[in-house]
């Protein structure tokens, strides 16, 4: 349709990205070796999750390929927050790409200390709290996200301390995802990232052992897209003013549009980038083509535009 000029920037209640497509955490190695990823053409980068000190991560094998999916458990291998500030952040700044720093820890204190090390650093636009890290303090190694009180403590402490807006990254298989979302908002989160990888197991029957050393990993890729869409949809229905970054199996412009329609304000691309380094650029182009085709001005105008097939009852939606 003629006459409508498209603009691609998105505003997540004050957190602005020039394009609605970001690189998801853990799928962009470091600014030092970006491979074939063109930093200048990303809406933003969510960093590999940073811990206070360098973390060696899990033993190999760390990955297995499953139908339409990728099962991984890297165990938070990262150079630590200091190395990130010294080596990576300046490179991101030079590329002028908005940086969302993903933070992780095995105790409340670690999350707090990582947050405080990041304060006031230019180039960072937001923090993303990864809650899949093992809670060594109270949770006997279960992820923080398994207990709402721990989610509340961590997200609350980081949000109170941080001068950057804070996004909490939640898994989909929470007993009550909407309640978890409300907990994060009450604790001070600016928004949510939905979803974290889905727990998965791959088995090598021939050798009678799990494929991953972990042995349970996080499933990503197209296999989890419907799960992620449902999570985004449910939370967006309940909390329409809460900024949500949708992530899980997005590999085409069409996939991204589906997330925006379901209620996401922006999307992140992970596994698809490992296969096609140009995926985020192609996805952004795909969104633009869709907007042009429908005569819609911006990605924000797609949000919540999903037309229900029939009047869904409230119970039916949630």
């Amino acid at each position, binding site marked *: 349709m003629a006459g409508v000029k498209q603009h691609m920037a998105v505003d997540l209640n004050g957190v602005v990205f020039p394009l609605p497509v970001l690189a998801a955490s*853990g*799928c*962009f*190695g*470091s600014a030092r*070796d970006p*491979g*074939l*990823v063109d930093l200048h053409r990303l809406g933003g980068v969510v960093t*590999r999750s940073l811990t206070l000190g360098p973390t*060696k*991560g*899990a*033993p*190999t*094998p*760390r*990955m*297995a*390929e499953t*139908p*339409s*999916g*990728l099962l*991984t458990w*890297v165990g938070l*291998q990262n150079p630590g927050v200091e190395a990130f500030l010294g080596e990576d952040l300046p490179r991101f700044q030079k590329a002028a790409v908005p940086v969302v720093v993903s933070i992780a820890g095995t105790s409340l204190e670690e999350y707090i200390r990582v947050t405080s090390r990041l304060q006031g650093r230019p180039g960072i636009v937001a923090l993303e709290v990864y809650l899949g890290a093992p809670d060594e303090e109270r949770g006997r190694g279960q992820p923080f996200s398994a207990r709402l009180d721990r989610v509340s403590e961590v997200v609350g402490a980081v949000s109170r301390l941080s001068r950057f807006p804070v996004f909490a990254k939640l898994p989909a298989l929470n007993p009550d995802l909407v309640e978890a979302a409300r907990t994060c908002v009450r604790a001070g989160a600016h928004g949510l990232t939905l979803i974290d990888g889905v727990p998965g197991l791959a088995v090598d029957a021939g050798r009678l052992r799990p494929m991953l*050393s972990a042995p349970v990993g996080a499933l990503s*890729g*197209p296999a989890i897209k419907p799960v992620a869409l449902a999570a985004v949809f449910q939370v967006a229905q309940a909390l329409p003013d809460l900024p949500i970054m949708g992530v899980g199996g997005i590999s085409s412009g069409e996939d991204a549009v589906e997330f925006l329609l379901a209620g996401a304000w922006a999307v992140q691309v992970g*596994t698809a*980038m*490992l*296969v*096609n*380094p*140009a995926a985020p650029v192609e996805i952004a182009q795909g969104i633009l083509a869709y907007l042009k085709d429908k005569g819609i001005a911006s990605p924000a105008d797609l949000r919540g535009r999903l037309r229900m097939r029939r009047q869904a009852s409230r119970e039916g939606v949630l």
Partner: protein
Amino acid sequence: MKRVKAEILNAKKLGAYHSLTLVAPEVAERARPGQFISVAMPEDRVFLLRRHFSIHQASRRGGWAGTLEFIVDPRGSGTQWLAEVKAHQFLDVIGPLGKAFAYPNKLTNCLLIAEGHGAATIFFLAQELRARGKRVDMLVGGEDQEHVFKPIEGKRLSQTIAVATEDGSMGERGSIGDLLPSTVEATGAQVVYAAGRRSTLRRVAEFCTERQLPSQMAVEEQMACGMGQCFTCVVPVIRKDGSGYDNLRACTDGPVFNPARILWDRWMGEAPQLLPTPPEGFPVVRSWPG
């Protein structure tokens, strides 16, 4: 590294393996032995990830200039698809990836050890070493005759060649490790290069460490992206100063490593992974011979 749509010039069967030759001048002109390429799977498949193959041949000059050959060992779903592609199809290829083998400056006698499809990268190395005036001897092996890669080519590339197969269908019955001491004695090897199964590499590594033979090995580890992004393909490698170890990516920091610096028992999952660095530190390994 470059990403190209490369036309298949030639696809042929070689024993148990398949050889694919691509027209990929941007990749071929930079490729060195030890490096690899990644090949995308067709988009409609349920298996998504790129597959990784060491570069067997990269021609910069002559009638084959700009071509690149790699070897497929069809054992999984992706490699089986690749074993059936035909000439003139196009593949989405990224390469060259990873660090190449280093060449010795002064030492001349090189023993090259290749097991199974590991020969693809080793034969490329043999050519380059010979072009630098080095003596090349080879020790090759596989499960059976079908899995001994291009034995005639091996003979042509080396001063002497010893062959071992597990079923005895070609050369000696047994493993490469069994022939190693006698081959090193016979050839006066000063430098050892190897590619093959992890258990074989470990055996060669232990032998080389004991004899203080400098060596380099191309390793394989489960790899998702091949471009340094995902951190799944790591190998525990001792730091240069022995102060500890780091999980280095086989795709960007390797696949070629000095095996004396690999913590084999940790890598093979035999030692508890979170063992602290011993108080005396790890042994400091001499750097590559000048």
